[in-house]
């Protein structure tokens, strides 16, 4: 059995609040069977032995932990801004390491090749220098001043534009990105990726959005995001090794991969190694 390590004491999404029934949903968290259900209207989670696990209901999802989280679940302040539409995209199951799923979300260089003519297109493949830091006060990885040319940046975008991005890793398997919001210059659209680690090589991905998009139908917004993620899945299920290598040597990053490098470093520093591999000594 794999070690859950320091990741055990963190929060993970285990279902969409809206979809929760009294009968509940049987699922896995880090290899352990759990049940997510409603009792007296309240979301509940129990482990394989029937023990109640801690629960938070936030961002449209139910969160739990197998351990004892020292901190509250992170917040996304933008989620409370008036006028935003909160979109629960639903679940996408991917046969990959939960950490690889997050790393892919932090990556822009793949846009022209995996999301061709949507989030990127040749010859606009260059990734300009951006800034990355591990913010010690909040213990998060941040990438800022990220820019990329996109033919159709969002459902609401018409024609190509250069989109600004910021990325934030706020939990071992959760990331939030901020991107230029075509209908509302000066504001950021918020797209989050909440990843439920089922096992070290299998995850349920729950994208979630807080958008200033007044026109699009909710189902179109959901379909757009799902289509993007299905494209990502075709890559994620075909990376070798399946586990994310945390030590340098196995893979070759370049300057465009600075966010990934920082994410891996941060994971390693904290012993967040469920879904990762360390080079054998």
């Amino acid at each position, binding site marked *: 059995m794999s070690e859950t390590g320091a990741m055990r004491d963190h929060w993970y999404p285990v279902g969409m609040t809206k979809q929760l029934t009294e009968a509940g949903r049987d699922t896995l968290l880090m290899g352990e069977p759990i049940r997510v259900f409603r009792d007296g209207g309240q979301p509940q989670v129990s482990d394989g032995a029937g023990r109640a696990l801690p629960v938070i209901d936030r961002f449209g999802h139910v969160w739990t932990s197998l351990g004892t989280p020292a901190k509250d679940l992170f917040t996304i302040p933008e989620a409370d801004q008036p006028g935003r539409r909160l979109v629960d995209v639903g679940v996408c199951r991917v046969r990959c390491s939960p950490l690889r799923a997050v790393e892919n979300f932090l*990556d822009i*260089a*793949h846009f*022209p*090749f*995996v999301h061709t003519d949507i989030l990127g297109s*040749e*010859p606009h*493949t*260059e*990734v300009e220098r951006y800034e990355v830091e591990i913010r010690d006060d909040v213990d998060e990885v941040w990438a800022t001043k990220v820019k990329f040319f996109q033919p159709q940046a969002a459902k609401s975008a018409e024609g190509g534009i250069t989109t600004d991005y910021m990325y934030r890793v706020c939990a071992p398997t959760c990331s939030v990105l901020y991107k230029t919001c075509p209908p509302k210059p000066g504001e950021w659209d918020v797209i989050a990726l909440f990843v439920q680690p089922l096992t070290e090589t299998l995850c349920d991905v729950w994208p979630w959005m807080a958008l200033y998009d007044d026109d699009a139908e909710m189902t179109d917004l959901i379909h757009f995001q799902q289509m993007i993620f299905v494209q990502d899945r*075709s*890559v994620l299920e*075909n*990376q*070798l*090794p399946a586990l994310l*290598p945390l030590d340098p040597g*196995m*893979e*070759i*990053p*370049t*300057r*465009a*991969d600075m966010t990934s490098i920082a994410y891996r470093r941060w994971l390693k520093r904290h012993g967040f190694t469920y879904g990762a591999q360390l080079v054998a000594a």
Partner: protein
Amino acid sequence: MPTDWTPAALSDDIPAASAAPGQLGPHDLAIWRSASGRIAAWADRCPHRGMRLSHGYVRGERLSCIYHGWGYGEGGQCVRIPAHPELTPPEAIKVPVFRAVEASGVIWVAVEAPEAPPPEFPGFEAFRSLQVKAAPEALAGALGGSGLVVEAALGGATVVALIQPLRDGAVGLHLLAPEALGAAELDALSVAAEALRRRVEEGVTA
């Protein structure tokens, strides 16, 4: 006639400017053909972030990875990193390459170049590849022979069967048919090959 080469695919199954996955013992291969027709077998793993190169795309004489478009040329050398168009990729960025040659319409692969070239089968031409869930010996036995190269009677014709051990209890069966078989005879051969596969696979589970 034992050979140090392993038959990995049929030439016709990898047309110009395409790539496909293959195996050589424990190694996963990306077998690909350049636009000008050159065949190559490389490790099926992009050095950048481990994506399978067999999912990649071919432009001209290069194989590019589908994830971030890194392009690889002669000898597996990385020649292009689209995120940094001005950069000349360091020489150290290289995909491990295997030997690959074509003979009798078959793509043969090896880790190190064997001394002898792969066998030729005059009068035969590559016909079809199948995957069979069985041990190599079981398949050879069902063809009435032994070893990895078997001449056998199948569907009313005499064929050459090349058996490629694969992982996970499977084998590749690469069939060579006599030249100048008619369409009806080839159809009969196909039907017989599939029946053989069923028979051998049922033998496995029985």
